[in-house]
């Protein structure tokens, strides 16, 4: 825990994120009444041979911070100096880690869509990679399940099942399967595999009897005490505890690193989830964050299905990424879906080979414009597919008994509907190379709009240098520093997308607008399939310039207040600006014929200044 009782005494902060390949360090200082990022450094991670000591990479990254900032951070004893004194040292040192493959878990429950799904949500929310979900009704035979558990070597297992006071048999049966498989931990053989039991409390003695001798069993409160209630907190905390105790303690140098930090080391995705939840909480907004990497794509969201209580979800699309998994994106999305975003012809055989060559040589970059357009088309599909998975996972609790009235019977709603409501989404944040390092920021905005299809008024931003993990763990120590740096230095504010919901078969106007831009008010009409860009930028302090605006959707088009109902709102600027998207929602580019598709794509690219002159 933080050693500072008063977070306001914290004036200097050093935070690191130990990734699989790179250790990234940031230095935050309190200066002139605000917390700001002062510098950042990075160095190769040193978990693997020949170094086998994570702290070497940390010290190298901090050394770079020291050189760039001029603040002396390393003492003669080779340790980070604490606390700060003038121009030396730091008040707090914290870290996250995903080195060594991150936290790998298996989860088990009784019913796939109920307790097993709640367990999966708990594990993902804690920042784990879920290797498999075992459930009584997962369509595998018991011996196949046992074989699977035996073959996996997770860092830990989360076992759930049954509501408190309900039947015990099924959850004990699952415990027996786990016991029969006699699973072994991934790292090291000198300790028993940790298993967290978070199921029916009445079955605890039986689960203990079945598993206690073979594994390191921990018991926490049931994560589904009743059908109507999910209680993921205790299971998540125990996962973090065990992550520190077992997984981190096994990795080379981590014991030393753990003794340096002022807060527990957190799994990197768990920390990203934390900063997104903190931001949503502080600004009372809904938010979606996406991190598209080489192998996987993580999606985080905070929505308020009842209009009040925030609900957090995280999903990992294990095989949707831009290098190692690029070929899988292509296979899952299919060629026509990728090529619909490309306004020129390419040969299929050649394209397939190009995708595979990127997969086997993942560090290459697009040199030609044609390659860039193609790579960004694949990114749109990877993001779209990852978001579909997220929407299917971020749902209301399944299996909940609902009281129905006659009116409900006509609405046909069922339990387990997605809570992702694009009209309610306030902010969309992207990170990962293809979004953070696109040559033009307009391209990042366009990729996010085309993939996520935001509705109504949605702010867009990208994480400039993937600082979200360090800021996530910082929320545990000094939350206001975390949110201040997040808004001013971490995010590159792209602007706002304004997109009315509705469809039009005959074209024509979809929305009237009036926007009080700093250099004068603009009014006009947005037509169907039209996109417009207005200049609305960022202030010197890094925060977006705002403008008052009114949007009046026409016909069946809706801006959130109902079809044809006008809204008055404040829009935020950014390095791209204010984008009006008249393509309607839902929007499917494939529905246009080939000629129109190329014509419109070219027009949108031109209007939003997405690319230089494209090949014919």
């Amino acid at each position, binding site marked *: 825990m933080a050693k500072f009782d008063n977070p306001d005494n914290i004036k200097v902060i050093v935070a690191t994120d130990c990734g699989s390949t790179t250790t990234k360090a940031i230095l935050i200082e309190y200066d002139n009444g605000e917390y700001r990022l002062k510098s950042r450094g990075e160095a190769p991670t040193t978990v693997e041979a020949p170094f086998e000591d994570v702290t070497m990479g940390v010290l190298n990254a901090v050394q770079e911070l020291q050189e760039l900032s001029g603040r002396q951070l390393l003492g003669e004893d080779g340790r980070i100096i604490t606390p700060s004194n003038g121009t030396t040292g730091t008040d707090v040192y914290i870290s996250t880690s995903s080195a060594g493959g991150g936290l790998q878990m298996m989860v088990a429950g009784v019913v796939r869509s109920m307790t097993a799904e709640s367990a999966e949500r708990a594990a993902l929310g804690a920042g784990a990679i879920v290797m498999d979900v075992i459930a009584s009704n997962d369509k595998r035979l018991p011996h196949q399940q046992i074989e699977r558990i035996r073959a996996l070597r997770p860092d830990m297992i989360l076992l759930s099942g049954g509501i408190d006071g309900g039947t015990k048999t099924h959850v004990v049966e699952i415990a*027996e399967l786990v016991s029969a498989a006699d699973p072994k931990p991934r790292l090291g053989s000198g300790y028993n595999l940790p298993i967290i039991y978070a199921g029916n409390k009445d079955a605890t003695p039986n689960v203990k009897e079945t598993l206690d001798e073979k594994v390191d069993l921990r018991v926490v409160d049931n994560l589904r005490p009743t059908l109507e209630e999910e209680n993921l907190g205790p299971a998540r905390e125990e996962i973090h505890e065990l992550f520190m105790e077992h997984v981190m303690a096994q990795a080379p140098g981590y014991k030393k690193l753990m003794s340096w930090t002022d807060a527990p080391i957190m799994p990197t995705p768990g920390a990203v989830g934390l900063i997104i939840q903190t931001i949503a909480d502080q600004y009372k907004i809904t938010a979606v964050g996406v991190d598209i990497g080489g*192998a996987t794509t993580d999606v985080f969201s905070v929505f308020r299905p009842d209009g009040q209580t925030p609900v957090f979800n995280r999903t990992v699309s294990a095989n949707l990424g831009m290098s190692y998994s690029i070929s899988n994106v292509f296979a899952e999305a299919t060629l026509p879906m990728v090529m619909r975003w490309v306004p020129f012809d390419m040969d299929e*055989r050649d394209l397939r080979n190009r*995708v595979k060559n990127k997969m086997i*040589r993942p560090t290459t*970059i*697009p040199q*030609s414009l044609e390659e860039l357009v193609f790579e960004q088309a694949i990114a749109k599909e990877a993001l779209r597919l990852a978001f579909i998975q997220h929407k299917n996972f971020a749902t209301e609790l399944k299996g909940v008994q609902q009281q129905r009235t006659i009116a409900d019977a006509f609405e046909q709603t069922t339990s387990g509907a997605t809570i992702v409501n694009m009209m309610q989404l306030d902010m969309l944040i992207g990170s990962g190379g293809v979004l953070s390092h696109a040559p033009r920021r307009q391209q990042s905005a366009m990729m996010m709009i085309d993939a996520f299809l935001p509705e109504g008024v949605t702010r867009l931003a990208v994480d400039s240098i993937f600082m979200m993990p360090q800021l996530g763990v910082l929320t545990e120590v000094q939350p206001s520093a975390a949110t201040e740096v997040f808004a001013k230095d971490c995010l590159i504010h792209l602007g706002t997308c304004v997109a009315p919901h509705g469809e039009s078969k005959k074209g024509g106007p979809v929305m009237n607008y009036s926007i009080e831009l700093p250099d004068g008010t603009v009014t006009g009409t947005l037509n169907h399939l039209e996109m417009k860009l207005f200049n609305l930028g960022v202030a010197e302090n890094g925060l977006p310039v705002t403008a008052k605006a009114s949007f009046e959707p026409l016909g069946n088009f809706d801006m959130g207040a109902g079809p044809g109902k006008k809204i008055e709102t404040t829009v935020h600027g950014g390095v791209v600006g204010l984008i009006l998207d008249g393509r309607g929602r839902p929007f499917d580019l494939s529905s246009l014929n080939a000629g129109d598709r190329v014509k419109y794509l070219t027009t949108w690219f031109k209007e939003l200044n997405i690319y230089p002159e494209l090949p014919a």
Partner: protein
Amino acid sequence: MAHAYTPGLKVTENLTVEKRRILPLKGDVLVKVGDTVGPDDVVARTLLPGAVQPINVSNQLGIPPEDIDSVMIKKEGDPMAEGEVIARSVTLWIFKSESKATISGTIESISKVTGQVLQRAEPTPVEVKAYLSGTITEVIPNEGVVVSTSASFIQGIFGIGGETHGQVEIAVDNPSVVLSDDLIKPEHKDKILVGGSLVTAAALKKAIELKVRGIVVGGFDDKDLRDFLGYDIGVAITGSEDIYTKLVVTEGFGQITMAQKTFDLLRRHEGESASMNGATQIRAGVIRPEVVIPAAEKAAEETAGDVLGLSIGSPIRVIRHPHFGKLGAVTGLPPQLTALESESKARVLTVKFDDGSEATVPRANVEMIEG
């Protein structure tokens, strides 16, 4: 980053190749340090615990789980044969119900909470072979061995299928020739066949029919790969494909002339025995496919293989469009970031290709040709 270019694949005449041959779980090592082994020699062996099959006896016999002991004929640890009665209940002296073993093995456990009986099948033997012709240089007790050999070594970029071995045979005149089905003959049975710039789907099919053990070639078409396997390889983790003929691709996807150096090395060793492995994993802990040709005698090791970095004159291969597959030498290494056609800013180099033309290419898009 220290290196903006991709380190190249190793292609070398003399190298000490060491392979760890480890059991999936502890067992017996059958050789000792100093022993000479061939690729098919078994070096370690163990017994894999049998699969577990549960049966719910209390459901089958209609009795409460807590009464299960009263019906069990077999106890925990008892052996049983498939079809043998393991539990029996008798109601009113005449109505008999029975539970029979569904596999041969032993009774693992009997649960009074669920009424479930776990049956454990007989263990299965697992053997690890030497894979290489060489010498045992280390024994890891109960786990396996290290086999070492002095060999010529070629790393590929991508492969399919696991391990095999056979005599090297060159099937084409030069490295730019396409290995088509008419070049594959019955006498190529059991051989490791070297092609040129591409192997066609028809050629690979014929190679499998004729029991060619392996093919080493410059390129392969992704479309053919998909048609051939019946599915698309989504992530580059291969090695478990069930195909007789293993494949090692040295340059990449599409038709790409095999590097002359690779082709020449293979040609020099035509007729010699080689081991090859198509297994590829392009993630952290990268595994590349390989061809290992053990030498009859230990030769002096090449030391030129340690590449310090790119410099003027370094031989390189471009590994991305628009110059994909072209070979050349570095002519300039401007230090500043340069804007590409895609408007990305990157560190670049200038290269003079073997055909005399010149180009500017991002350093990330070239790989060193290593010795």
